[in-house]
């Protein structure tokens, strides 16, 4: 039940992509997202699709697993498609009652859908191949280069890793409190939305109290272990760029170069927007 929820959705296969430095993957993903929003014709999408296929194959993650990630967001994709399809003014090619479908609308809708799907697939490949801990470390490093965020980089990543540490504990706790209240005759299965929400109070209050107690005890324990923020702190595992990361960077620049090329192609086959 609740225990089956996997946050971060890490899927270890031990592939080269899994072994890459998390910073490499974060930078690669960022470049990839920027790319997605620069693409302006079908060649670009074809190239991106190719990149995705190659990366997925190397990562050894089952394609079905990746597609499952899209399923969860299918509603958002459909909504975007419909809105663009009907709301874009231009040359009408078909009518559906009071709504008109335009050629421009069709183009935009198709591209938006592709963009969203590629975005979801691309980022989920990153989380699937990177353990939450590595991801946190990578993000801490990346945040150091962002002004304003820089000074909170350590705190943010510490908060993230504590959250990851306590999610399974709190899940188990929720399960136990739910059972204890059920044993006292609580009913979580029937009733309308309002009464159901009200029925959650006997679970939420104990859960909050417990979370605060844990936070308090953890803070004391951290202080007892000489925690005093990020200053002068060292790390046991330091992130080190290896050769495979260097190769990835070369590939990344090639990818960006390729993209710039596709934006310059003006093919009659495809309609530029």
């Amino acid at each position, binding site marked *: 039940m609740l225990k089956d929820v996997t946050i971060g959705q890490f899927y270890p296969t031990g592939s080269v992509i899994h072994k890459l430095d998390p910073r490499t993957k974060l930078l690669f993903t960022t470049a990839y997202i920027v790319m997605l929003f620069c693409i302006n014709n079908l060649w670009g999408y074809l190239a991106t699709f190719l990149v995705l296929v190659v990366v997925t194959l190397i990562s050894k993650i089952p394609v079905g697993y990746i597609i499952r990630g899209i399923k969860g967001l299918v509603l958002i994709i459909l909504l975007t498609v419909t809105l663009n399809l009907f709301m874009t003014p231009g040359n009408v090619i078909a009518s559906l009652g009071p709504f008109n479908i335009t050629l421009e609308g069709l183009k935009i809708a198709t591209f938006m859908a592709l963009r969203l799907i590629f975005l979801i697939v691309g980022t989920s490949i990153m989380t699937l191949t990177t353990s939450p801990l590595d991801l946190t470390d990578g993000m801490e490093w990346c945040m150091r280069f962002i002004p304003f965020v820089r000074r909170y980089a350590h705190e943010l990543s510490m908060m993230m890793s504590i959250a990851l540490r306590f999610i399974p504990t709190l899940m188990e*706790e929720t399960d*136990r*409190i739910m*059972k*204890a*209240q*059920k*044993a*006292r*005759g*609580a*009913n979580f299965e029937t009733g309308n939305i309002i009464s159901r929400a009200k029925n959650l*109070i*006997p679970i939420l*209050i*104990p859960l909050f*109290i*417990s979370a605060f107690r844990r936070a308090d005890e953890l803070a004391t324990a951290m202080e007892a272990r000489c925690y005093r923020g990020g200053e002068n702190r060292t790390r046991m595992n330091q992130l080190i760029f290896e050769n495979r990361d260097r190769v990835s960077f070369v590939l990344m620049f090639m990818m960006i170069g390729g993209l710039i090329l596709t934006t310059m192609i003006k093919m009659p086959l495809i309609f530029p927007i």
Partner: protein
Amino acid sequence: MSVEIRNLSHIYSKGSPFEFQALNNINVTIEDGSFIGIIGHTGSGKSTLIQHLNGLLTPTSGTVLVDGEDIFNKKKSEMIQLRHRIGLVFQYPEHQLFEETVQKDVAFGPKNQGLSEEDVNNRVRQSIKMVGLNYDEVKDKSPFELSGGQMRRIAIAGVLAMEPSVLILDEPTAGLDPRGREEILAQIKSLHTQKKMTVILVSHSMEDIGRLVEKILVMNAGEVVFYDSPNRVFTEIETLESIGLAVPEVTYLMKRLKTKYPEIREDIFTVEAAKDEILKVIRG
């Protein structure tokens, strides 16, 4: 109220790679008015077993009969009525308190049973008294102002207020100091002797089990190893040790003394009984 566990098996996450058989063909009858102890190391299936008795878990196969009626094969409303008659107190039950006042928290169970306000109040008063606290003193306090031992007793009162015929307690003394432990156990004992309640006590303390219960259910790897009187169970020292359990210290002592005093009894598990036996045999 008697409880019969028939061919009960439970498999967690069946059909997934995490499949785990927690209970394997359990057959146990708990007679009306008895006091049963359940022992077994962590992961032996104790918690899974007791969660079947009031329908929190549904068996993979087999069933539970309460007073001869199958609690998993009935109309939902009747089943819920029946389950309310089996009260389950979880480990660290004070972690489930949530209301603003002690009165309201203890009333949660009986209110869910759909009782009238008057009945609810009567039950709250009685059950707070049953756990040895002063109703007028604590009723308007926030449960979170109370001491650890008092909070635990209020949580137990919250289950007692449903007037169960069978009371199951999962390690009710965990984390308390010696006096707190003693007080809780004394109250449980009086519920059994004075209210004639059937009590099932899950505990890691062989000393407590030895001096309180009439029958011990020993579990290991999801199966019943023994279900017998303390006299019989605690003389099986080797089997108990092989499944990570122990016997009370005085039982070990009697076994050691037997080499010098062959006539000394070994089926002893309380300080009181040990004293009498030593005085009888050694002092003559």
